[in-house]
Structures are given as structure tokens and as C-alpha cells.
């Protein structure tokens, strides 16, 4: 075989590799964006449930004004958060505020017995799970993408085309402990 043919073959192989790596990166990045909007849907659900909850608890426990203020404040900062990190922080803040709200509710047996409250509590707990799982899905997609961006030889092409590693959605300390699993 003559040299030009070998060179041509190498060039074709290189172009195919380039195109497939580029497409792979684009697909992974689209998945990340999808996963991110999945988190937003769940965060929105969560903020939507809160006014109802606050009203219900207020009906039984008017005097715990500080708790309500904390929850409302955390809710509005979550709604106005734009960057990923802000959202993660506001979400954690809201979790803490809600925890104290539910702790307060413990002291009011009538409230705890009300079916409306139980229903809201159940839905909020479920929404928290949903936030956690959509975040986990987002993070595993980010992991796939970042691996490809950073591992040789696809990192060269990613660097040339301007792909950068994406940010993880951080969990709270407490949640991190919960999800710690050892795989052998």
C-alpha cells in the first residue's frame, strides 16, 4: 500500500473519532440539562406545597411566628435562586426550616391528627424524596459527562471544542451520610 492511502485512511479514522466524540459529549450535555430541569420541576412542586402547609399549621399554632417566617423566607429565596449553587443552598435552608416547623407541630395533637396536615406532610416528604432522586440522577449524568471531558484521549477533543466539566448538585451533610454505600 502506498503512503497516501495510509494517510487518507488515518485521516478518515480521525474524523470519525472526532465526530463521534463530539456527538457523545453533546448528548451527555443535553441529558444534564434535562436532568436539571427535572430537579427544577420537583423544587417548584415543593415550593407550591408550602403556603398551604403554613396556613394549615397557623390555624392550630398561631404563636410560632418565628418558624413561619423562616419557612417563608427560605421558600422565597429558593424561588428566586438562579445558579445551581444558590438553589442547592436555598433547598437545604428550606429543609432545615421545615424540620423545625414539623417539630413545632409535634406539640399540637389536634394539628397532628388533622387529615389535611397528614396529607400535606406525606406529600412534602414524598417531594423531598423526589428532589433527592432527581438530584442523584442529575449528578450521575454530570459524572458521566465530566469523566468524558477529563479522561484521555477524549479530553483533548473536549478541550479543543471548549467543553468544560459541569457542577454537581451538592447534598446536605445529613443526606450525604444517608446515601453512603459501599460497593465491592
Amino acid at each position, binding site marked *: 500500500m502506498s503512503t497516501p492511502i495510509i494517510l487518507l485512511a488515518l485521516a478518515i479514522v480521525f474524523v470519525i473519532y472526532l465526530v463521534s466524540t463530539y456527538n457523545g459529549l453533546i448528548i451527555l450535555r443535553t441529558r444534564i440539562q434535562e*436532568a436539571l430541569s427535572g430537579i427544577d420541576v420537583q423544587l417548584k412542586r415543593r415550593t407550591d406545597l408550602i403556603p398551604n402547609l403554613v396556613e394549615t399549621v397557623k390555624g392550630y399554632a398561631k404563636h410560632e411566628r418565628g418558624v413561619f417566617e423562616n419557612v417563608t423566607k427560605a421558600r422565597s429565596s429558593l424561588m428566586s435562586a438562579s445558579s445551581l449553587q444558590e438553589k442547592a443552598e436555598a433547598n437545604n435552608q428550606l429543609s432545615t426550616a421545615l424540620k423545625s416547623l414539623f417539630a413545632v407541630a409535634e406539640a399540637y395533637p389536634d394539628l397532628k391528627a388533622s387529615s389535611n396536615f397528614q396529607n400535606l406532610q406525606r406529600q412534602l416528604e414524598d417531594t423531598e424524596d*423526589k428532589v433527592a432522586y432527581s438530584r442523584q*440522577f442529575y449528578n450521575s449524568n454530570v459524572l458521566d459527562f465530566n469523566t468524558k471531558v477529563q479522561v484521555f484521549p477524549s479530553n483533548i477533543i473536549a478541550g479543543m471544542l471548549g467543553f468544560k466539566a459541569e457542577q454537581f448538585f451538592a447534598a446536605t451533610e445529613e443526606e450525604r451520610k444517608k*446515601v453512603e*454505600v459501599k460497593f*465491592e
Partner: protein
Amino acid sequence: MTIYSQISGNKTRTWVIFLLFIFLVSGFFYVVGLYTYSGSEYFVIGLIFSFASTIGSYFFSDRIVLLSVGAHPASKEEYFDFYTVAENMSLSAGLPMPKLYVIDDSSPNAFATGRDPKHAVICATTGLLSILNRGELEGVIAHELSHIKNYDILLASVVSVLVGTVALVSDWMMRSMWWGGIRRRDDNDRDNGNNPLFLIFIVIVFIITPIVATLIQLAISRKREFLADADGALLNRNPKGLARALEKISQDKHVLSTATTSTAHLFILNPFKEGKKGNWLLGLFNTHPPTEERIRILRGM
């Protein structure tokens, strides 16, 4: 083995089973045609019948299976935990939400069926839903979603419909011969006493049974259950949930009345319970790895 090779492996095996089934059934009808001197009409019937069954089993296996176990759709209002846990696990797996069905039976068990993640069904018994808490239910549903994700459901559902069909056909042949529905065109009535077709039939049964058993084993290598256990644990990051669920399910001694040998391999745990010696066929259909081993591995994760 990556998830992608699992998926393509399952699709290939489904095709192999389709071809094998068509070959087997039309071959069987061809032999009957030869015996009765009726030319190619039996062969054509066999061909049409086997093609129709394979196409039917591909598109409708989920509905057939659900019908055969007597399941009805589950609503969010009535089964809040089942519904929301399934939503959560689908979020975690990045899969579309499967349709949910419930069997009214106190024996705790669950299975998944369908042809791909977009046409998937998870079905649980009311017994299962009443004894498991949310964490344990997450484990079971994550396990079923892993079967959905790697197309185990396609292969398993198709096999269960086709095996059911073979059972139906052989049952029908048996009855036909018993009542003399199939006979040589030149036969006289008095020859029926020692019909050699009975001998052929018995030989065929002995040939078909191991083939059917092999089909099922093709579909359900026990490795699949371990893989689905491990993949499922990745979805909710809590292998102990499934371990506890398996313990609870295996402690229950009720037998699921609507399950049959052709659907047994679909379930998360053998619906006939381990150690039942009644049917020698069940030995061939050893569809599930020992539960103790699965629990031990999950606890060790």
C-alpha cells in the same frame, strides 16, 4: 458486562426464541400434516399460527400476562406509597414512569412486564404493598426498574406468552387425539383402539418439554436476578431496603394462586415458594437463585 451489551443480548435472545418457536410449531404441524396425508394445509396453518403468536407476544405480552394473573390498574389515591415510590425510582433511573397494576392476593410478590421502557408495567400484590414500608418498597421497585432498563422484561414476557401457547397447543392436540379429531384420512373407525399417533405424541412431549425448559433458562439465567439486585441498589443507594423486603417476602408462606409455570419466572421471588416438591416440572423451571444468597450479597454491599 455493560448495560448496553445486556440490552442487545436480550434483544438477540428474543429473536432467537421467535425463530425457534416458529420452527418448532410449524415443524410440529408439518409432521401432523404428513401423518394425516392432508398435504401442506397443516403446515400453512402452523406457519400462520406461529407468526401470529410471535407478533402477538411481542406487542401484547404485557396485557396477556396481566390478564392471566388477574391484575387491575393502581391509582395514586388508593396506593399512594406504591405510586409515589415508583415515580421516585423512575426519576432516579431516568426512565419514563411505568404503568402500575395490583393483584388482589395476600401472597407478597411483584413483577415487571412489557416490551421496552416506554411500554413497561410494574405489578405488585396487595399483600406486598401491605407488609412493606417505603424503604423496602423502593428496593423492590428499583429491582423491577432494572429489569425494565436492560430489557429483561421483553425476553421474559415473550417467553411466558410463548410457553403458555405451547402448553395450550399440546393440551389441544391431546384432546383432539383423545376424541379422534385428528386421524388418517383412510383410517377406519375400528383402528382407533391402538392409534400410533399416541406414541408419536408421547415422543414429542418428551422432546418438547426439555426444549421449553431450555427456552425458559435462556430467558432467566439466574445472573439476571443478581444483576437487577445490584443495579436496583444503585438507584436508591440502599441495598438493605431490598434485603429486608426479600426477607419479609420469603417468610410469607402463602402461594400466589394466579401464577402459573409460564409466568413464574417473572416474579421477584418464586411464587410457588422454594422447596415445594409437588411438580417435577418445577425442578426444570428453577427460575430463581436462593433467596438467602441474594440477601447475603445485598447485606454485604
